[in-house]
């Protein structure tokens, strides 16, 4: 599990400028205390994930919404069971089930601020 997220360094910021990373702003409290409402994070598109990674995924029922959660379990069928760090205020795989691999967009590699 990533206990603490790295702060973006110059390389991260340059990769953001050149479109290798994508910036996202966090809305909501479900990833507290790791990520606060209003934090900015950089996402690296990827298909390789480990348990403990914080990932950006498409919401299973509302495809226009992207969600940030942590990988709790990688299932034998390749789907991901995601949960928020703030268990009491997160709606996640405990409610909507595991997310298929195709809906995991990338992982959080650092925070911008």
């Amino acid at each position, binding site marked *: 599990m990533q206990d603490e997220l790295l702060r973006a360094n110059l390389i991260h910021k340059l990769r953001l400028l050149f479109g290798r990373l994508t910036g996202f*702003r966090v809305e909501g409290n*479900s990833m507290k205390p790791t990520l606060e409402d209003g934090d900015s994070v950089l996402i690296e598109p990827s298909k390789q994930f480990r348990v403990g990674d914080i990932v950006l995924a498409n919401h299973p029922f509302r495809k226009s919404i992207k969600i*940030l*959660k942590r990988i709790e379990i990688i299932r034998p069928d390749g789907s991901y069971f995601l949960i928020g760090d703030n268990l*009491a205020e997160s709606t996640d795989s405990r*409610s909507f089930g595991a997310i298929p691999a195709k809906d995991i967009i990338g992982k959080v590699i650092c925070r911008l601020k």
Partner: protein
Amino acid sequence: MFGKLNKEYFEIAEAHCDGPCGVYDPAQARIEAESVLMLTKKILDLKRPEGDDAQKAYANTLARFIAIKEQRAELAKHHLLVLWTDYFKPEHLAKYPDLHETFWKAAKLCSSCKQEISLEHAQQLMDAIKKVHEMFWDSKGKDVAWYTAS
């Protein structure tokens, strides 16, 4: 430089609950259940009058009371189901073992209150929502006193 980037290029990543605001409060169910209780009392107190015009007015009033009781009981059930299925999580069930039983009974009482004119069931619905209120605020670690509007 990067502060500007932040505003212009960053998309939103939701770390919400379904709300997606995360705002829940059993007060919504309590207010609807209070209406059900009051309407049940009003229906029971209503006296059938003599005379054509008075009877029409009586029928109109009774029909309105019944319609609103029906509607409010359905709303109470809706708000209870939102709390049950969206707010409460398996961790809460471990802490409050009678959580499912409480919600199941409360939802059934909403149906009884629609079908019947029962003061007893309307009061039992209020009692069940009080129990939900206690579990809910305890789960948030807040001491919120139970109160009613009527």
